[in-house]
């Protein structure tokens, strides 16, 4: 594994129609396999959405959801620890902005690792290099999965 490889986290993305009960169906499937959802969000477009989730067993989640007929894809994201104080997000966003790395989307949660920012960027290698050389902390995938 390359230097950056251990920071790459497998996020699952699930295509979902925009109608009642779809999220429940996904969540129920994960529960049945005892898969824990660490963070998730729903991106909504016209008539459909994509549910993006960070889970503890992405391979198993992929298998289960695909078996139920869902469209599932893996996407690589990175996780950065933020200082849980005003300006915490700014520090990370500035590093990436100054380094000309574009954030495609991002979501955050606050858990036992502190405040964590999940990022999908256009240049992951570059993002990892910038963040780790400029004093911020990346979380390894092993923390989650």
């Amino acid at each position, binding site marked *: 594994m390359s230097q950056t490889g251990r920071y790459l986290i497998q*996020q699952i993305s699930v*295509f979902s*129609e925009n109608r009642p009960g779809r999220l429940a169906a996904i969540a129920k499937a994960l529960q049945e396999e005892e898969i824990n959802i660490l963070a998730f969000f729903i991106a909504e477009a*016209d*008539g459909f959405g*994509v549910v*993006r989730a960070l889970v503890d067993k992405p391979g198993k989640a992929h298998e289960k959801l695909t078996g139920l*007929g*869902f*469209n599932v894809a893996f996407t690589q994201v990175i996780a950065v620890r933020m200082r849980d104080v005003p300006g915490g997000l700014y520090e990370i966003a500035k590093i990436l902005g100054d380094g000309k790395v574009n954030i495609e989307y991002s979501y955050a949660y606050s858990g036992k690792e502190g405040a964590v920012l999940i990022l999908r960027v256009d240049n992951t290698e570059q993002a990892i290099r910038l963040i780790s050389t400029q004093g911020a902390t990346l979380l390894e995938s092993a923390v989650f999965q």
Partner: protein
Amino acid sequence: MKCWDPRIEEMPREDLRKLQYRLLKTLVYRLYSFSPFYHERMRAGGVHPDDIRTLGDIRKLPFMVKRDLRDNYPDKLFVSGPDDLVRYHVSSGTTGKPTVVGYTQHDLNNWTTSLARGLVSCGLGRGDVLQVSYGYGLFTGGLGLHYGAERIGATVLPTSVGNTERQIELMQDLHTTAIACTPSYLLHMGEVAEKMGVSIRDDTGLRMGILGAEPWSDTMKKRIEEWLGIRAYDIYGTSELSGPMFCECTEQNGFHVWGDLAYIEILDPETGDPLGPGEKGELVVTMLQKEALPMIRYRIGDITSYDDGVCSCGRTHPRVQRISGRVDDMLIIRGINVFPSQIEYALMGIPQVGQHFQIIVDRKGALDDMLVQVEVSRESFSDKITDLMAIRKGVEHKLRNTLNVAVNVELVEPGSLPRFEGKAKRVIDRRKL
């Protein structure tokens, strides 16, 4: 003017049948001699022109269906040489291949004559301004009505479709007295006019609508007449017959089918047995004088009934009631024929979506709205919303180009659309006509 051509329109029934027989006989001999397609069909059906000894013997002749036009795309069924053609029109076919109709000068003259008679029969004439809000171009509606109305000396306002506000302004400024369009477009116009603060009933001189190119009901007719304060006349045709051809007279009790131009049968769609007056069945049309693209016993697929009695207007030609349905799954969306098979064919060329689909048709306001649901294939699903949006746009674009009508596309989960083992029922039609 009461009749455009009284000699024909009020011809005694017996003379009309003799004329029809003569025309049929000539047609059959001509096609047996000059059309490889009909020659082969007649031989395969074991019928020779000599076997046609009465008008009723038309039943010995083989049918023709839309598929025959597709299989012989673009012009293999034309009997006239290319030098004799003066026009083409093109309409949608059942799959990717459209239907091409060629016209000789004689064909255009008959088309125009047919409409001249029909327009006079519903009271149009000199001094009238006919706003033609059917599409001009490859579609037959616009140009057909245009020449028919000019022939009888009415003034034509060729607005074609769209830009409804401008249509309403022109209707007021140029004192439109009659409009030709689809019934749903006229209702839409009424709504747009109200939003502009214009009442078609009170603020325009509109007195009649010549409405067709889509199925409509008595309820819709009543609503149009009462709300807009006009008389609504049904007009019927398809590009294979030339275009819009036959129009209701002032009696408003079915459109007269001119017997010197066309011979109609109403058949049981299952057995092919002939049905009598008043019985609902499949309309089968033989065009008695068409030169470039002859049509013998053409099964258009429309369900209706006919009335054989002499009309109180004095015309002796049979009347056909407004179309009440289809024998196949063809849809008419904003006046355009749409076959689910066309959608199937178009989707085959788009690997990002599966071959399954569902069509949901509804009325948004007065206009048809068509939604096509397709499944995103597993291979093409990515996490990116923009990729999914691009797939949707791509499918919309392809369907619009194939069908010539705007379509909304909805992406659904794989496996979520119904699967069919027998005949697929892919259409949910929520329109209340």
